[in-house]
């Protein structure tokens, strides 16, 4: 089980959280002008790196807040976690 560092509560068991996939995917600007290809990219394409990934989790059974965290998809090691709208720490890589 992952031990996930919630930036509000500290490290807690994975079963307290739900996963939110890739972080920093913003709603597209000028959405009324997007092509089908651009919509497909926004709706369906998410990065799937082998290595460090910035991702979202929500601490559902704790503070119930969303946050971002760096995690390595090769060995599940966690890097720094950080609050939404705060400065993103550099990738630990």
């Amino acid at each position: 089980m992952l031990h996930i560092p919630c930036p509000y509560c500290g490290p807690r068991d994975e079963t307290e959280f739900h996963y939110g996939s890739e972080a920093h995917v913003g709603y597209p600007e000028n959405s009324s002008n997007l092509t089908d290809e651009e919509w497909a990219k926004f709706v369906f394409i998410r990065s799937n790196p082998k290595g460090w990934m910035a991702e979202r989790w929500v601490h559902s059974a704790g503070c119930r807040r969303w946050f971002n965290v760096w995690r390595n998809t090769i060995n599940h090691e966690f890097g720094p976690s950080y609050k939404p709208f705060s400065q993103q720490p550099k990738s630990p890589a």
Partner: protein
Amino acid sequence: MATTTRRRTVELPDHPDFLWVADQKPKKSYDVIIIGAGGHGLATAYYLAKNHAITNVAVIEKGWLAGGNMGRNTTIIRSNYLWDESTGIYDHSLKLWENLEEEVGYEMFFSQRGVMTLAHSVSDVRSKRRNFYANHVNAVDSVWLTPEEVKEIAPIVNISEDIRYPVMGATFQPRGGIAKHDWVAWGYAKAAADMGVDIIQNCEVTGFNIVNGKVQGIKTTQGDIAANKVGMVAAGHTSVLADMAGFDVPLQSRPLQALVSELNEQVLDTVIMSGAVHVYVSQAHKGELVMGAGTDSYNSYAQRGGFHVIEHQLAAACELFPIFERAHMLRTWGGIVDIAPDASPIIGLTPVENLFINSGWGTGGFKATPGSGWVMAATIASGEPDTLAKPYALDRFTSGHLIDEHGAAGVAH
């Protein structure tokens, strides 16, 4: 290599010393390179040689043959999906399974013992009934079972109404079943190698040689290899390859776990699945219970998952099958599955000319091994999507023609 292990219920033939050239080195160039020596990659190479007389083919594998998901799945075979496109490819696959052992001349322990999918709530019953009717429309064998009929086929199922997930009915596909997955891989590998296909293990792809948008070959840990055409059949690592080739794929790689018990007397002669409680179980030929769990929630390439996922699965299994409570689990393991947004595969052309993709089989690729190889070989040979593969093109995510099989995919994602 004779073994002295006592066998319980079935005599497995002794493994031959070798089936293909074990330390094959790559040639300078090939007509076709297939990346990934799992079931789908080997089947693709086999059908390229068998159906299209293309034998100057290499199957490149970063690890060992069938060491990825092909050796990590729960070997369930069925074709009772919801949509026409799915029936097309999965039922074609099932028909190929039915003659496969004779065709390739290799034992695979294909056993059509039926696959039962349980329904546990009113909405579950409705969606399974819908599936059952869709199967009838598409001439796929499908039977609706009452809880009592479930009990008749599989007496160990608890059909009491007073459990957390009561059995309210089930669909049953009699033609479904299981096969021994490693034997399937070896059978395809041997038959392909006999026709001249090179199988090259311990050879990881590190890049593509692409000139003017057209693939010319691949870069590997064993040097550059030229090819007229390249097929990516790399399951959980497809995104990594697509990154190297410079295009996006709508895939997420997640761990999917399975587990096996010690050898038991035969108590279950069919396959039972339950999407609602994340249980699917069959009893292998020697007597071990083979069970699968749901996917872990996060992206990973680690080939392992959390134990709480196994715990959740076993809790439901023990309630549905009280006889399992004292069974000892021997091993758990994880594979990395590539899941597309609609839980359907992605097969066909890519933005790079002569580079083909076969991926996104997610949690249910094993059953499709023959059909997947068949359509991939046809697509590579002609350079155009095969009829059955056409709906699975990468551009369906732009056109919106998704093939939503989350309901029939068996495992919740």
